[in-house]
């Protein structure tokens, strides 16, 4: 526990660069980024949300909020017409020209840094809590909650002797799976649970060939629920020429999880990662 707290402090020091100073007026918030929306709900400040982007699909109540579009393709006037006092967004919100236009109107915009690790999620939480001026009395309890997940994950990483060999699939294009290479959120999740990403030498999300899948032969496949559905469920996976000869499919070690929960690096990611690690035992 001490070690975790120590790491946490060190990492937070690095996070100081990011702008987590309290917002001038957080009463009407527009959010671009699912993980941020989830954290605002965790912090019980969801009544202040006036609009979210299309990646904010959890919890269910978000569907009744007006949509400002996709996080990377926002509309300046659209957002401004809702008269937000604060715009919170993930690091990749954009396009940059639109962000510039919003700047000109002098509405406060805060970009939340992304670090794809368990501790990174805590940092996001802390940052948003500060911005929204949530008092320590409320955050302590919530942070403790989140930290238990972090501890659990730390334990899993330490204890797990067998590091399961996993390939993580986002979706399919023409039957070819799009896999998580390094620097992706998928890779971050696998690192979190101490699994081995059989495609860690590749950068970014990339389609894979039959040969590379067979030569690396993952023992486990993790697929997003949407990706699985698009391929026609487990039956489709078993028929997929690229996948069907892998150990994972032959042994029935294919697991599907909610994509946003798993890869969004919001609070659900902590939970979901632990669920995943259970399945991989």
């Amino acid at each position, binding site marked *: 526990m001490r070690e975790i707290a120590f790491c946490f402090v060190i990492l937070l020091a690095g996070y100081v660069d990011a702008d987590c100073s309290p917002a001038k007026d957080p009463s009407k918030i527009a959010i671009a980024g699912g993980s941020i929306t989830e954290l605002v709900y965790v912090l019980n400040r969801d009544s202040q949300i006036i609009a979210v982007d299309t990646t904010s699909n959890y919890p269910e109540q978000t569907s009744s909020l007006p949509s400002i579009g996709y996080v990377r393709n926002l*509309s300046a006037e659209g957002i401004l*017409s809702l008269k937000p006092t604060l715009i919170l967004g993930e690091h990749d919100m954009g396009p940059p*020209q639109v962000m510039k236009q919003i700047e000109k109107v002098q509405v406060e915009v805060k970009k939340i840094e992304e670090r794809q690790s368990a501790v990174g999620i805590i940092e996001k939480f802390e940052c948003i809590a500060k911005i929204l001026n949530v008092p320590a009395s409320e955050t302590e309890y919530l942070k403790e909650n989140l930290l238990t997940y972090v501890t659990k994950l730390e334990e899993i990483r330490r204890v797990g002797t067998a590091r399961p060999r996993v390939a993580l699939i986002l979706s399919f294009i023409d039957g070819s799976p799009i896999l998580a290479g390094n620097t992706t959120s998928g890779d971050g999740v696998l690192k979190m649970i101490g699994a081995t990403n059989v495609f860690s030498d590749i950068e970014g999300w990339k389609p894979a060939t039959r040969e590379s899948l067979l030569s690396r032969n993952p023992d486990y496949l993790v697929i997003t629920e949407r990706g699985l559905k698009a391929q026609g469920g487990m039956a489709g996976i078993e028929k997929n020429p690229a996948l069907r000869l892998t150990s994972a499919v032959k042994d029935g070690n294919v697991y599907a999880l909610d994509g946003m929960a798993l890869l969004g690096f919001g609070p659900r990611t902590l939970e979901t990662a632990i669920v995943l690690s259970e399945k991989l035992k």
Partner: protein
Amino acid sequence: MREKTLEAPRSLSLEFAGKSRRENLVLVMLAFVLFFVGALALSSGAVPLSIGALIDGSAKGLEITIFSEIRAPRVILSGLVGASLAAAGAVLQGLFRNPLADPGLIGVSSGAALGAVSMIVFGSALDLPDWIAIYSMPLAAIIGAMGVTFFLYTFSNYYGHFSVVTVLLVGIAINALASVGIGAFQYLSDDAQLRSLVFWMMGSFGRADWITVMPAASIMLVSILVLVRQSTQLDRLQLGEAEAFHLGINVKKLKRLVILVSAGAVGAGVALSGIIGFVGLVVPHLVRLLFGVSHRILIPGSALLGACLMISADLVSRIVIIPSELPVGLVTSALGAPFFLWLIARARV
């Protein structure tokens, strides 16, 4: 041969002389429509604005900023891009004597797209300071368009003496190469870049701001004016290239000018707003149907009508799903495609 000097039948003579007057009237009318559409677009949007309040000074700071920094450059950009694409389409249809010609055909849009896409993918690796990074993409797109045009020009000139068939074939090859290039970049890019790319290619005027719009606008405006001046020559070119030469036209010079200038206008537009289809193809046909076939009315008419249609399409994309937006390319395709089919059915191109 001139023993008989006849009085031209009065009615026909008046009609023909009246044609010029009618053409000018049509252009004035289109200019009025453009003014009206522009005013409508400027006063409509997600944020309620009243032009009256802006004029008499009672508007709040936020409204003034939204109007002057967001809406005004956007409406101007959409108008000019619409005008450029339509004028370029009209001129290319005349140059190739082909009703299916369109700025996309000669590969200029693809070249601009390739430039922009390579900047999206490699831009992060270059690690440019923020203030350059914002303009790096439009700049890369213009370089792409100019590069394609230069290649098209040199190749067509050297190997085919600018024959229409050569230009069209080179355009096809360029489009194919650009597809490969863009596909390769899509492969090399990571998820974040990939999404930016997809949205950029769908076309949008949401990225307009004065610093990028001003230079692009001047390029487009000058280009359109130059193209309008080629009306008489392009009319004569309809008789055939040899025939146009017999009538005193330096055909090679005309082709060179038309290709370069339309490439410049289209490149500047694509650089800022991505690829927007159908306007270059469909607007000239609409003008021919409604007003006449001579380039005197066709080129300026297409420019004005193209501007009206694009401003309207952008307006639709901005107000249909507030607070987010439709990609304007989808609006123009959704309207343009059925209209195009209707044109084919009428077989009156």
